[in-house]
């Protein structure tokens, strides 16, 4: 009797287990479906927006559009001064933010003593990444334009965007450094390396992939920033180029461009979109498409770099 009772109950248990597994699998399916739906709707929205811009701006995708200055006549207007301005501002941003950000990240991670001071710095750096960009514009207007007298120039704009980009570079540098296993660090110290040798020969070399990714993502953010540059007084209509950074005569480098007035791609776009004539809206759409293509390209390069380096260095 006892044996007979056992068998059906074991079978019942088995059925129970199977039902339970089916239920759990259904939850898997529901979650995966939900995730797919969210991702798909986001991606599709982005693609529709982008396609809309491309379709609207399509007639403007000519060489002339990139080599013409803005003009009162929409058909002749181009983004020459805007893309040159964007490039020059980004060069300043890059030169300022990258070394400062990496150095700060290395210092915070490797050298600074852990304590209340480093905690405060840590919280502030994280907060800086979340401050609305217009606040940076106000800071820059007060500090760079008025206090330092740098004017409404490419230099001011580059420095402003550098402030915006700094926290991104610092945070990504620190994260990349933290990903280095402690065993590798100890191995380097154990053969008699000094802190600086460890930083130079190991920390920097193993974390540059992550740092580079942060730099590119920071640049991609900077390229689309509009508000802080309007605050410091970027021009919205500009029909000349800054002095060339490179010259034919020695010393071949000319720094006058740093003090020149400028406009950038998103401001140019903003300017055109705020005009009543439809023809200018086509220009704006084309400019928007250019900005999106640049951003996607930069992020794509960042992802590719990260992927390549992860493949090479696996802990």
């Amino acid at each position, binding site marked *: 009797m006892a044996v007979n009772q056992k068998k059906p109950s074991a079978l019942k248990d088995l059925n129970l287990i199977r039902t339970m597994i089916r239920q759990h699998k259904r939850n898997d399916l529901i979650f995966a479906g939900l995730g797919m739906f969210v991702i798909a709707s986001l991606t599709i929205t982005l693609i529709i927006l982008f396609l809309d811009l491309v379709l609207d701006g399509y007639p403007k995708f000519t060489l002339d559009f990139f080599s013409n200055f803005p003009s009162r006549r929409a058909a002749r207007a181009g983004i020459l001064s805007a893309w040159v301005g964007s490039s020059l501002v980004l060069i300043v941003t890059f030169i300022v933010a990258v070394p400062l950000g990496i150095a700060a990240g290395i210092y915070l991670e490797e050298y600074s*003593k*852990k304590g209340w001071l480093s905690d405060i710095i840590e919280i502030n750096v994280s907060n800086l990444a979340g401050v609305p960009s217009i606040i940076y514009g106000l800071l820059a207007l007060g500090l760079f334009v008025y206090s330092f007298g740098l004017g409404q120039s490419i230099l001011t704009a580059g420095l402003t965007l550098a402030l915006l980009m700094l926290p991104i570079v610092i945070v990504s540098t620190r994260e990349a450094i933290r990903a280095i*296993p402690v*065993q*590798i*660090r*100890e*191995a*380097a*110290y*154990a*053969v*008699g*390396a*000094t802190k600086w*040798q460890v930083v130079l*020969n*190991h920390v920097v070399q*193993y974390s540059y992939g992550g740092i580079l990714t942060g730099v590119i993502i920071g640049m991609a953010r900077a390229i689309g920033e509009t508000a802080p540059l309007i605050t410091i007084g970027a021009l919205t209509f500009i029909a000349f180029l800054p002095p060339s950074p490179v010259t034919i005569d020695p010393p071949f480098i000319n720094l006058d461009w740093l003090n020149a007035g400028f406009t950038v791609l998103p401001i140019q776009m903003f300017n055109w979109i705020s005009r009543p004539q439809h023809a200018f809206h086509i220009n704006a759409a084309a400019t928007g498409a250019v900005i999106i293509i640049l951003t996607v390209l930069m992020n794509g390069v960042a992802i590719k770099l990260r992927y390549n380096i992860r493949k*090479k*260095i*696996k802990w």
Partner: protein
Amino acid sequence: MVTEKNKHNEIVKAESKNLNFFYADGTQALKKINLPVYENKITALIGPSGCGKSTFLRSFNRMHDLYPGNKYEGEIILYPDNTNILDKKVDPIEVRMRISMVFQKPNPFPKSIFENVAYGLRVRGENNKRILDDKVEEALKGASLWNEVKDRLQDLAFNLSGGQQQRLCIARALATEPEIMLFDEPTSALDPIATVNIEELMSELKKKLSILIVTHNMQQAARISDYTAYMYLGELVEHDDTNKIFTNPSKKETEDYITGKFG
């Protein structure tokens, strides 16, 4: 200079004297440890997890200095120059230049095989290509790895097997001609064949230097070491010839541990 010797007329290479160690949170991990390390001998540290044997080992190259708040008391004297390597005036880097270490998990740098071995020399300012080539070859031969890697010195070290990686780490530690080599459970992440290779290698290495090894594996201690120290709860329970420890220990606790009644 006094050269200290034991009853077998063996030279003491290093010696801890009343060594206490405190972690940053205040826990005392080592209590009054007195232990000699003999020249050209292998001294094994055994004991249950958390007994402080790794902590003790890592005091010998001041690894604890990498983390703030750790504190040593007492001395570790390195002979023949009678340097107390725990002295605040002695730079930990100087200590690590004399005493090298092999870790539990193989930890090669993500660099080429050649650069892994050459790194200790580069840190010491050696950049002469020919000298580096010679010393790297010598160290790889010393770690019995040369024949397996001589044709692919520029390959990434990660492409080696686990056992090869550990021998590479031994070569890296060997290239700088250390006086003492520390091994922190060097075979615990390796398969039995790789383990035998490393054990044979250690017996070969002790001809040139002194070895202090932490091991979880009592058979390993019995196989390779000349001296064994049994530690428990941060204290040194017993230290003697390996034969004596494993056949006729003088303390009850040691016997319980090696016979498996405890631990």
